[in-house]
């Protein structure tokens, strides 16, 4: 790609006459380019002195002006008011004359050179692919720099080269270019790179990614030095000074230096990238039970925990925990032991957590809703001393002997993360991390004893760590939400109203459902803070929430976090502005936490470039329980701070210019098709922008063996209230907004998205895309249509409801709610439709107990 045009500005002697110049131009042009349209000499008077800024800007404007189509050369003579000076501005199309030729034209017009001393060329010559050392160094440096921005192992740079065997006084030779393909893959050295030979661009070759633009020395502003012309929509601007910095390193490095050691970022720039933390003054580390004890001492009669209709004061909760701690001791639990807790949500679960901590043991929550086999395996892997599943066994024991409190750096709990592959890993988190977390947000969130918090999440999901200790370590009241209520948005909403909850924590998926219930459920006057976490947030659907709950009355905070870094890492307040912008920023690190975005070699990526999010600071866990290998792999030493450790998140992120972190999804999830990266988040975002869609999920499957053709994108959408259920129009809209390789193959309409027990999207329970489920025992859908005014049998009505909810043609009494893809939201829908169609109330619990259509019909008939 030759440059679009060249320009040259030359100062003329004071006696230069317009007519003489014009004649010289005509004579030369007739000689060099006979039969072509002759360039004219244009004159222009600048009403300012030649040395003024005005004149300089006018010269620059002339030089920047493109050449008209079909013209080879433009010559403009600039004269200045009251001065005998004149400047000649010569401009030529990049494909018509090269920069050297312009200098020759100028010499001829000034009379320094006879026109016939210059040999014209009448067509392009093959490019001379030999590169001089300077150009080679520059191209190499540019390739290395761009490689670091894009994380690419191979970068192509187009290098301008002169035509081969170019005569010394040629005019009209095309500026050719060669393609310098830099191999930056691991193990390559400086010598390898500098030995790279450029090649001629192949016919029909894709245009090279980058073009080197050689700036003239002394140019002003951005034109100074080498620069990159980004040609792709995603190309990042590469600062020229970084290219020069790499060039210096290339020149000064031993030939066997690995390319990975070159760094476009100066020490200062690296430090800037590493300094992504929020300043704070670190307090002395404290234990959880220590801080709790202080709350008990300060406000013994204040309400601490509400479960059902009962509320315990801080003193009562503490008494219960003391009793259970004595029981743990009686059962042989000693400091450092692990204690499994398999208790339903309630006061005893929290008291047992406190009891374990008081006994200087480590609690391991085991969700009673999980299958027993899974619980047993988790307890076995953790090597728990005992598992508490009945608090009664821990009561009535003698006081345990007094003992000094353990260290704050000691472990407090183990939470198991369910990775997509392999066994769950137990994350060992120390006391100090939890108290630091509460400290980090206490002021910003204005947490106080006036607050009422929900404990919505399972104890096995670390979001509950935040809920439980956030409330109890700040003197607030913890409202335990039982499992059934947590699965019914309307009931949960009623609980929020009843208990005057002020601090609510939710996954975005669960919050979407709560927000839907809120549309009809009346206000939430006490609610002042919603913490969203556990999943990437799509801010757009929050607009409706903001309409009902203005940000100045209820603050919405999106928190990015990881179990291995103690629940949260960053926080971003979400307002209407972010929702409208569809922001994916997760904000800044909590005070005491730090975030780095590093490349695979552990170096900071340049600003704005994507890399792996590494988390350091107060939240980094001790490691994986009994799993030294994964611990060593994920918890890595901090090269900058030898005392610290970093957790490698496996999440992709980048630092935005405003100093916040953008979360780009899991690195493992990155799927490429024909070199295009597929971003499920982006597809989902486009779907959610559709006013007809209230929730969306995207699955990307196939392509595991590198088979791009097998990659398949499927979308699932939940229609917005009042919107139609036409997947075709949703897909058509997405196809208009997404690049072809990202358009979902199918769009499946669902009444609700399936969620895991933790309230996150459960991709495993999404139905097969675009298909309707066919039940196994195909019995006739319903008896012959009943007479118009005869009441339909309840069983038939219920079957009709199931058919509508699950979207199946036929249904039989043995069809199972779960096998049909049922979830809590389907259950709610069934309940709603049952009421509407005059059936007795279908309790959610009943549906779970009698999940087949036949059994449920019978239960309803019995009036259960």
């Amino acid at each position, binding site marked *: 790609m*030759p*440059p*679009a*045009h*060249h*320009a*040259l*500005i030359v100062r003329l002697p004071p006696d230069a006459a317009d007519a003489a110049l014009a004649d010289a131009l005509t004579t030369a042009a007739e000689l060099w380019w006979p039969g072509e349209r002759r360039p*004219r000499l*244009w004159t*222009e*008077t*600048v*009403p300012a002195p030649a040395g003024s800024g*005005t*004149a300089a*800007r*006018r*010269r*620059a*404007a*002339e*030089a*920047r*002006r*493109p*050449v*008209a*189509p079909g*013209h080879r050369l*433009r010559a*403009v003579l600039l004269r200045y008011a009251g001065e005998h000076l004149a400047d000649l501005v010569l*401009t030529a199309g*990049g494909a018509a004359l090269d*920069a050297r030729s*312009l200098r020759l034209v100028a010499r001829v017009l000034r009379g320094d050179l006879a026109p016939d001393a210059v040999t014209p060329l009448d067509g392009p010559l093959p490019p001379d692919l030999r590169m001089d050392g300077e150009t080679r160094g520059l191209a190499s440096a540019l390739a290395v720099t761009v490689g670091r921005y894009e994380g690419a192992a191979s970068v192509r740079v187009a290098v*301008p080269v002169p035509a081969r065997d170019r005569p010394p006084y040629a005019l009209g030779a095309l*500026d050719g270019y060669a393609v310098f393909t830099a191999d930056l893959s691991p193990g390559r050295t400086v010598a390898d790179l500098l030995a790279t030979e450029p090649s001629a661009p192949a016919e029909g070759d894709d245009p090279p990614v980058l073009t080197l*633009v*050689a*700036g*003239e020395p002394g*140019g*002003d*502003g*951005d*034109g100074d030095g080498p*620069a990159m*012309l980004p040609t792709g929509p995603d190309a990042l601007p590469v600062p020229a000074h970084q290219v020069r910095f790499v060039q210096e390193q290339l020149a000064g490095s031993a030939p066997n230096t690995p390319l990975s050691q070159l760094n476009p970022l100066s020490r200062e720039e690296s430090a800037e990238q590493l300094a992504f933390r929020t300043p704070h003054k670190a307090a002395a580390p404290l234990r959880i039970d220590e801080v709790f004890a202080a709350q008990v001492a300060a406000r013994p009669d204040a309400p601490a925990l509400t479960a059902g209709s009962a509320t315990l004061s801080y003193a009562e909760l503490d008494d219960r925990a003391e009793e259970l701690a004595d029981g743990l001791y009686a059962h042989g639990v000693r400091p450092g032991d692990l204690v499994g807790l398999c208790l339903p949500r309630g006061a005893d679960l929290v008291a047992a957590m406190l009891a374990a901590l008081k006994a200087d043991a480590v609690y391991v929550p085991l969700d009673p809703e999980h299958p027993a086999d899974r619980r047993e395996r988790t307890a076995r892997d953790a090597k728990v001393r005992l598992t508490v599943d009945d608090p009664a066994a821990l009561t009535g024991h003698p006081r345990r002997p007094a003992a000094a409190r353990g260290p704050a750096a000691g472990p407090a709990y183990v939470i198991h993360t369910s990775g997509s592959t392999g066994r769950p890993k137990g994350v060992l988190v120390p006391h100090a991390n939890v108290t630091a977390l509460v400290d980090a947000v206490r002021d910003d969130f204005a947490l106080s004893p006036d607050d009422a918090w929900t404990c919505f999440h399972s104890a096995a999901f670390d979001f509950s760590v935040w809920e439980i200790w956030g409330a109890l370590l700040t003197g607030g009241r913890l409202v335990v939400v039982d499992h059934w209520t947590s699965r019914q948005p309307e009931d949960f909403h009623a609980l929020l109203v009843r208990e005057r909850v002020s601090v609510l924590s939710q996954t975005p998926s669960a919050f979407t459902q709560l927000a839907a219930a809120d549309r009809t459920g009346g206000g939430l006057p006490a609610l002042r803070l919603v913490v969203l976490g556990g999943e990437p947030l799509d801010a757009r659907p929050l607009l409706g929430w903001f309409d009902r709950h203005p940000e100045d009355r209820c603050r919405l905070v999106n928190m990015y976090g990881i179990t291995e870094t103690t629940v949260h890492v960053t926080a971003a307040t979400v307002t209407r502005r972010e929702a409208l912008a569809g922001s994916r920023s997760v904000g800044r690190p909590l005070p005491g936490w730090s975030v780095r975005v590093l490349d695979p070699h552990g170096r900071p990526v340049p600003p704005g470039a994507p890399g792996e999010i590494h988390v350091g600071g107060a939240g980094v866990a001790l490691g994986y329980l009994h799993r030294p290998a994964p611990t060593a792999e994920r918890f890595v030493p901090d090269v900058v701070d030898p005392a610290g450790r970093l957790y490698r998140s496996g999440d992709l992120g980048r630092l935005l210019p405003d100093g916040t972190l953008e979360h780009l999804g899991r690195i493992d999830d990155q799927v490429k098709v024909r070199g295009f990266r597929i971003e499920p988040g982006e597809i989902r975002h486009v779907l959610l922008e559709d006013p007809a869609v209230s929730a969306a999920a995207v699955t990307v499957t196939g392509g595991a063996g590198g088979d791009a053709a097998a990659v398949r994108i499927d979308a699932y959408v939940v229609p917005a209230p009042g919107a139609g259920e036409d997947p075709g129009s949703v897909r058509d809209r997405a196809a208009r907004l997404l690049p072809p390789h990202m358009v979902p193959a199918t769009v499946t309409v669902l009444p609700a998205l399936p969620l895991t027990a933790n309230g996150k999207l459960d991709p495993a329970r999404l139905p097969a895309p675009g298909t309707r489920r066919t039940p196994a025992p195909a019995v006739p859908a319903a008896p012959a249509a009943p007479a118009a005014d005869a009441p339909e049998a309840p069983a038939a009505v219920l079957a009709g409801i199931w058919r509508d909810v699950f979207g199946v043609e036929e249904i039989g009494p043995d069809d199972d709610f779960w096998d049909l893809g049922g979830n809590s939201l389907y259950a709610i829908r069934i309940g709603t439709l049952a009421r509407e169609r005059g059936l007795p109330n279908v309790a959610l619990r009943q549906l779970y107990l009698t999940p087949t259509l036949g059994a449920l019909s019978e239960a309803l008939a019995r009036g259960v």
Partner: protein
Amino acid sequence: MTGGGGPGPVNGGGGPGPVTGGGGPGPVTGGGGAGRAAGGGARLAGRTALITGAARGLGRACALALAREGADLVLLDVAGELPGVPYPLGSASQLAHTGRLCREAGSAVLTRQADVRDLAALESAAEAAEERFGRIDVLVNNAGIAAPSGRPAHEITEAEWQLMIDVDLGGAWRAIRAVGGRMAAQGSGSIVNIASTAGLVGYRHFAGYVAAKHGLVGLTKAVALDYAPRKVRVNAVCPGSVRDDEAMEGRMLAEIARSLEVPVAEHEAAFVRDQPMNALVEPGDVADAVLWLASDESRRVTGSVVTVDGGFTTR
């Protein structure tokens, strides 16, 4: 002196697309209000505008307004007498003066003498404009005559009718013919036709003028559709009675008064009484509308008629 509207919002880099050349000296980046006098904007920085009838009056006001916003200019005028027109038209001196004023505002200027009835002259001017500035971004079809007028239709001679239609309607079409293809080829451009309230309503004893200006509004709409796929916009501005500004050396109102054989002052007073806003339109008011239509601020406006008449035609 009016017109121009002062420093408007600075509208991005504004240049004609990103300047990706720059192998030569000077900054690589484009845009910016290069060489602009202080106080001007950059809404048209890097753009080239061709204006007909630029020697004086509305043409001069438009030229200055565009110059202040960073445009380089090609200024055309008949710069001489036209047989059959009963009043003196713009002069070469007036055209040069407009050029001087625009240079002082920071523009590079090319002036040409050209009669809009002469297609070859317009084509030559367009070619020179492109050769000099590389491209043409804006065409303001401002040239027009108001007289011979002042008589009922049956008293207009064949020659008078032909002259009026040929200048006021045909002139705009010829300029479009000379420039439109170049704009279409480059995939951008804005054409502004200066019509009149006489393009929207009738005026007694001005049959030729009213017919020509109605025709110009029609031409605007048709050509807008011709060029819409190529992102070339075509719009009309319909000024009401514009005050003859001294600095602009306008004399349209005076000539209309003379056609009607009434004293200028009386004619002006009558027009002011007719205006709902009780004031005549100033040349700068019209130039501001032209500026908006010339700039990217109106990038989705085409085939439209912008009336600048103080409300005259609304009743």
